[in-house]
């Protein structure tokens, strides 16, 4: 197991390196002078000097990259151009708020999606399968930024039972679990965020379960006289590795892909930070946020990989 862990880690490290290269090169994507790309047109001389010093644009690219990487390794992502605060603080604060959403969205999405898919897969072709599969397609195709707005219209504008935006009564930007009244702010973003993963996981589970159902060993189990619940238990266990892979991806999306939903609800998470950084042309924050989110994504995938091989002995061998 340790051997396997090391081998997967060996695979993840170059990926993480590549990810940092991509994040670094984001500054150079736009044509023209990177300084102009980075800085807002009305930047003060002070800001220009600061950015120049931080980036060392006079040096050759590989040197610039290594210097940047060296600083990033010790947690120094530079300063936000907009707020002048260290990027690390901005990003970690935002990540905390995003993980609050994920903390609630993940169990809801995973359990709902898995149950929907499992039920549909156990009754392929029946009306319940059609209904569930149809809803799953709707979930997958849902523009969640629109769905968030619709929820706001119904529950905040029309019924006025839930707050439309923000995360606390007085515009706080750090979620407080101890304040019960803040829970109301969670409801709409969490529901919105869960819809797409529910659809994706339901579809994957449905496909995996239906596929396993067709395998010969299921006939053997039934021929042995196992009860239908026991058969289904076997089937679900065999379908799990495939579902787990998709769940890992979805976890990563929930951590990083919530940018649209956070923007709709002005939830001060990593996605919202990112969209602010884009509007403000705040490249250090942009780079830092994306790098952190991508690394979390890589780590999640590593974890899922390990869990999969723990469940599925066939993967463990290779």
């Amino acid at each position, binding site marked *: 197991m340790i051997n396997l862990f090391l081998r997967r880690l060996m695979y993840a490290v170059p990926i993480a390196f*590549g990810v940092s290269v991509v994040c670094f090169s984001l500054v150079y994507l736009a044509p023209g002078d990177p300084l102009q*790309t980075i800085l807002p047109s009305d930047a003060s001389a002070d800001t220009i000097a600061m950015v120049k010093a931080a980036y060392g644009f006079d040096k050759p690219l590989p040197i610039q990259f290594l210097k940047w990487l060296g600083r990033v390794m010790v947690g120094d992502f530079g300063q936000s151009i907009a707020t002048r605060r260290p990027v690390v603080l901005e990003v970690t604060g935002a990540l905390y708020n995003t993980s609050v959403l994920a903390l609630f969205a993940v169990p809801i999405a995973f359990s709902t999606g898995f149950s929907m898919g499992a039920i549909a897969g156990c009754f392929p072709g029946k009306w319940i399968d059609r209904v569930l599969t149809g809803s799953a397609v*709707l979930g997958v195709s849902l*523009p969640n930024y629109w769905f968030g707005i619709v929820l706001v219209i119904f529950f905040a504008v029309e019924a006025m039972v839930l707050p439309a935006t923000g995360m606390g009564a007085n515009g706080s930007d750090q979620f407080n679990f101890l304040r019960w009244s803040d829970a109301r702010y969670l409801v709409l973003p969490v529901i919105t965020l869960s819809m797409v993963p529910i659809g994706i996981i339901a579809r994957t589970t449905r496909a995996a379960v239906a596929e396993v159902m067709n395998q010969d060993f299921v006939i053997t189990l039934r021929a042995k006289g196992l009860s239908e619940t026991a058969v289904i238990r076997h089937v679900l266990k065999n379908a799990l590795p495939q579902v787990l892979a998709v769940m890992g991806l979805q976890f990563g999306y929930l951590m*990083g892909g919530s940018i649209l939903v956070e923007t709709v609800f002005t939830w001060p998470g990593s996605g919202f930070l*990112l969209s602010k950084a884009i509007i403000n042309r705040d490249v250090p924050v942009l780079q830092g946020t994306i790098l952190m989110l*991508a690394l979390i994504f890589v780590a999640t995938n590593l974890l899922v990989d390990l869990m999969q091989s723990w469940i599925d002995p066939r993967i463990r061998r290779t």
Partner: protein
Amino acid sequence: MSNAMTLPQHPAKEQAAPKQRGYWGSVLYRLRYDPVTVFFGCVVLAIILAAIFAPVLAPFDPYKESIIGRLKPMGWKGHLLGTDELGRDLLSRLLYGGQVSLLMGVVPVAIATVIGGTLGVIGGFGGRRVNTAIMRTMDVFYAFPSVLLAVAISGAMGGGAANGMIALSMVFTPAMCRVAETATAQVKNLDFVEAARATGAGTLTILRYHILGNVLGPVFIYASSLVSVGILLASGLSFLGLGVKPPTADWGLMLSTLRQSIYINPAICALPGVAILIASVSFNLLSDGIRSAMDVRL
């Protein structure tokens, strides 16, 4: 081989020849008997035609503003779907908006299919080193959540429709590459490819005659499923202000600007999202239908 020979005729051959359709013919044949797919195929067709013929179909000028006619309800003074926050006819803007939204969703998929598909076939058919070089590079881009990568790239490039399409192409290419690589590697190990090599055929000939035909199917299926994602992501980028610039009509951008007015006329504000949803669902179900029609094991 000039000497003629006669052999006893094979016994099991007096049956009538089945109607020859070819592979794609049989796919179409199966599609015709799938009402759901046919229906959503028609919806997709209608959406595309509506976007193309927007100049003919649109009842009003999509850019004509009206100070007194802002955010009017459906049916007001001939505005079937009402007016937006600047008093422009919403139906006309939705028709025109489809042009940009569909284009931004479909073009990146097409680009990614060509680039990613080519890289994937090369990676799957080439040696181990080529494969490692291509696939590990793709893995790096795969390590970003797709929305994030699209936002990051188009944001860093300064937004705009063209940059958005470039960003989305970069998001889809690695996924496309993986699909093509897997399909190629699977086909490559089948006996008929070895048989073709044994015939003395060169690599390019084998690729052209034996690999491509078998890889195109999975690639096409995957590309069709990406279109829906493409439309969703493209509208998402526009929603964040990374797509076309106002006053150009685009579903995502319209949703974003109308969003400010949900307290005045919520029903109108939600309409652009309905357009996105209908397009995305229809493309998705059409793609599902194509998949099951093509996925028949031979």
